[in-house]
Structure formats: structure tokens, C-alpha cells
């Protein structure tokens, strides 16, 4: 089965940041946010990420750095067989995992 590997920043200011790798089964049309939902459903429900509209690129809550570039997790397709590095936004206080103190 095709998978996509997410290499994601986990942790908070107290515990410190570390990268964790997750291998997620690929589904046709999957976004990176969908892949994170799979992790929250099957591996670790305590994974923190902001999201609201989920697919429409409207709420702008799921902002993160993807392979070093800022983007919206709901609007970037997961590519089977690839590995993606996902980090929280900089310039805002970091809260936990991918969540930052957005207004």
C-alpha cells in the first residue's frame, strides 16, 4: 500500500521540540491535513493542530511550514511515496506541536 511519511515537529515550550516520523496510508486526493487527521485518529489523539474549514483555504488556521515554505495544510496534496517536513509557523509564540498563538 502506498504511504506518505510526515516528519513533524512535536512538543511544547516546556518539553522542547523534536521531530517525529509518521507513515500514513495514502488515499487518493489526500491533503496533508487529512494525513494529520489519520494520525490523530489512529496513532496519537493528542497531536495538536489548528483547523476549522478543513478544505477550503478559507479560515487560514492550518498554516504551517511545509518543507521550509509557509502554506496551508488543507490545500497541499500528500504525494504517495514522499516524505514531507512539517513545522509550526515562526514569528508567533509556539504553543504545542503545530499550533501557534494565531489571532
Amino acid at each position, binding site marked *: 500500500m502506498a504511504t506518505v511519511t510526515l516528519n513533524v515537529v512535536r512538543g511544547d515550550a516546556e518539553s522542547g521540540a523534536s521531530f517525529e516520523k509518521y507513515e500514513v496510508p495514502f488515499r487518493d486526493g489526500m491533503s496533508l491535513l487529512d494525513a494529520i487527521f489519520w494520525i490523530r485518529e489512529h496513532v496519537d489523539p493528542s497531536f495538536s493542530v489548528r483547523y476549522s474549514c478543513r*478544505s*477550503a483555504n478559507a479560515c487560514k488556521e492550518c498554516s504551517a511550514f511545509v518543507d521550509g515554505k509557509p502554506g496551508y495544510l*488543507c490545500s*497541499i496534496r500528500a504525494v504517495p511515496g514522499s516524505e514531507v517536513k512539517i513545522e509550526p509557523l515562526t514569528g508567533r509564540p509556539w504553543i504545542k506541536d503545530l499550533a501557534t498563538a494565531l489571532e
Partner: protein
Amino acid sequence: MEPLHLQTDVLVVGSGAAGLMAARAAADEGARVILTDKSLISRGGATILAQMTVAVALGEAEEDSTEIHFEDTMKGSRGLADPKIVRAVVERGPEVILEAEGYGVKWARTPDGKRSQAFAPGHSKARCVYVDILNTGGATAAGLKKAIWKDEKIQRLKNVMITKVVVENGRAVGAIGFEMEEYRPISIAASSVILATGGLTEVFERNSASANMTGDGFVLAAEAGAEVRDMEMVQFFPIAHLFPPLVGIDPIMWDPFRYKLGGRLLNGLKEEFMDKYNGEVAGKYTAARDQTTLAIFREVEAGRGTPHGGAYLDFTMVPEDKLKEAFGPVIDILRNQGVDLTKDMVEVAPMAHFMLGGVRVDEAMRTRVPGLLASGELIYGMHGANRLSGNAITEALVTGRIAGETAAREKSDALDEAAVRQAFEREMERLTQFWHPTPVERDSASLQAFKRKLQKVMWKGAGPLRTESGLKEALTELKALGSELDRISLAKPGKFALSLFEKLEAANMLKVSEAIVLGALERKETRGAHVRLDYDETLSQPSSYSYVLNEAGDWVVTEVPLPAGS
């Protein structure tokens, strides 16, 4: 963290168009306001996803009046709208549209400087203003956000979930909740509480609203003693995106393009079919949402669906330059994902879109609990059994404004802080029990996975097509899910404690799901959005269904006959 104990004149729960407008209006009347949202202020909820149309009788495109808007809305409601609410909304529609424009919501203009007003199905006049074809909701939210952001009378609290409205001696006197980023319990003593929490479409597997629309306000209101109406009435949006899977688009974005370009709906045999059901003329777009939804499902049922169980939406007859002009940047988003609209059709199918029923209020947005008001999608009365395109943002803006004005004008000077503090202690105890029935190091289950199970049950049993056996099965499965939820235990809260929200949301989703199913069983007819395959007639005597929670916390559903032809 240490609890936060706050006081205000008006507490507004929810920051979509209704909540933002309620906060603005209450502050305009001189009240101090606290505005909370589970998500970021102005970013969650449905407003931000609204595509294009805002229906209002400005009469700039053609002669129009609030009376005609009233009649169109009543007619569209299939006999179930509350005339007092419809009148209150349509009459102040023009005023709030101009007010929003003052906040920087730039309604599109025609070359001669009038506000553009587009036609939408069910409206007999061209009356829908818009900012642009895909971003009217976003622009509305952005304008209202600016209008409240720097007002020192309005305190904003993001990532706060309200879990209880405090009622003392029959009057709402505040609310209890907590902030999730740092996990901080909060009590708010308030003279009035306005609920503007939006709908409940997240209970369905296929839905088009934000993830935080979990029906919280219906439960908060009912637990405080308010009456809710017609919970079985959920609007399914007919032509939501089905296939191929796409990212970065709103699944309901096809609608405005269909208005503009006359996209054709075809069945699996690539034949037009809308004419068979509603006499809709090829290339035109006149059938209301309930009619189109039913027509698509009838085709699927008859074995004439598309491979994924919907209908085709076809723009291939539209010249490429016109497509490019209308779709703008969307055409690239589509092309990057392998969809070329000059050659490819997409598959569309209905999706849960809007809650038609809700909290019963009077024309000043008061519930039957003094001090507790409601506004926006949360209320009952504006749409009956079918909402016309464009009537949602109008409803949100007007009812938000009315609720804010009423709350501020009727505020009492004395706050009952003692009652709120007592309720706070009790509520924190309840929440601790609810979140942590057994001590665990890690969450004992994924609430996101739990919600997905619930959504499948509701889509299958209480979705766009309903039967007694399907509904009864759903009710049994909901009960089992309730026991499963009770047993889920969460780890001690840390930062960004999303699971705490999720368990409460899941409980609210179960409670409103149960109401939807109970009402759908009671309503033995097909009317508007409510389709019973085993009762396909529409009864000549329209009835509304009233829901209250009894002392045991169970729904009690009562039929309320309405005047025929109302």
C-alpha cells in the same frame, strides 16, 4: 492555570457574522461585551465559507420590496417559516447591508455605480448582493472583524468553549467555560447571554461547514430551558463536490459558477434530468435546493447515478475564455489537480449544509428564558423546511444586530456573581468527571475517530433520504455510541487541549443527532429538506415540532400545528 472570573453586560458566544454583529450592536448601545469563540475570532463557523449571495431587497437591479422578499421566503419555506422572524429579517436587511459596507465590506457595483444584485433560485427578483463570486463570506467576516477589533468595550476571547449557561431564578445570569490553548477555566457573569454558535452540520459525514459546527448552541439553549423547533430540518446542498477528490477548494464552490455560466446537471447516462422533476429549463438554474437534492437522489436511486453516486456537472459547452474569466484563479487550482473543465465533467452530490430548525426566539431574538438570546443559523423561523440561497448571511447579520440591541437595552445593572461562582464550582466538578471517568496517562481513544463513526451513522440513517427503519437503526446506534463516549477517558489537560473540546463536542453532536432522528421519525411526511421515502406525501396541514429537554435530560418532542397556507 488559575481560573479567570469575568463580568460583562453582554456575553456573545460565537464569532461568525451573527456573533460579530451582535457584539457590534450591543457595544453601539453602550454595553460592555465579551465575545468568545471555540476557534479564532471570526475564523470558525460558516460565515467564512459563504460563497457569494446575500439576499436583500435593495431594489438596485430591479424594483423590489421587503414585502416581496418576505413572500418569496415564506413560499420557499414550504409552509414552515415563522412569519414574525422572516419579517424581522427582511425588513432590516437593506439597513444592515449598508452598515456592513461602512465596515469595509465592498459589495460589488455595476458600471453605473449601483450595487450588483444577482438572481438566485426561489427569489422572484434579482436581489443578491455579493463581494465576489467565491469570497463574499470571507469579506463579510473580515469587515465585521475590523469593526469590533479595536473597540475597548468589546473583549475578545479566542479558543474558549462555553459549556454551560448559568440560570438563576429562571434568568440567564452568565456562563461557564474554559480556554483551551493553556487550559484555563472561565466564569463570566453577564446581564444577558447571546448564543450565536451556528449550526450542527458536523454531525453528517458529508458536510460543507467548518469542523467546529457541532451543535453546541442547541444543547446550551435547551439545557438552560429554551425551546428548539424543527430539529429534523437540515438542508442538504445539492451540488457539492464529490469526485475527483480535490484539495484547497470549498466543496460547495460550484454553485455560483452554475449561476453564472449555466453549468448543466447530467445523470450517469449524461442526460439532462432536472426538467423531469422541476420543469427546470436546460442551462437555466431555477429549482430550489430541496428540489435539486431530491432530483439527484431519485436519479441515483433509479440506477442512473454517476460512478460515485451523484450527478455530473458539465461546463464543457462553455467557451474556454469565458470559463477562465469566471473561474479566475480556481481554474489553476483545478488544472493542477488534473481537472480541465473544457474537457472534464466533475461529479457532484448533496452534502449537509445548513441547519434550518433551531432555537425558538421572538422578533427581538429573546428565547423563552429571560436574559438568554439567540441569533444566526442557531435560530428557528427564517427558513422553515427549505432555505433560499442568499438568506443565511442576511439572517446572521440582522438577527445578530437585533440580539445585540435587545440584550444591551434590556440589561440589568446588577450582576449575580455569587450564582455564577457557585455554578462554576459545580460545572468544573461535572467536567472533571466527564473528561476523566478513569485515571489515564494518555487519551483512551481518539475523539476524532469517534466523531467519524457518529457522522457515518447520521449520514446513513438520517441523511437526505429517510425511512422509519433507517431512523430507528440510527437511534439504536446513537445510544451505543453514547455509552462508548461515556467510557472514553482523557489525559490530564496540557497545552492546546483539543481533546477536551472534542469530547464535549462529541456529546453535543450525539444530543443534537438524537433530536434530528426523533423529529424525523415523528414527521411522517416529505416536506422540503426532510424526505421520508416511506411517506412521500406533503401533508396539507403543516406542523412544527417543538423540542425541550426534561429534567432527566431527554428530548420531549411535541407537534405544534401551524395555520395552513402560512
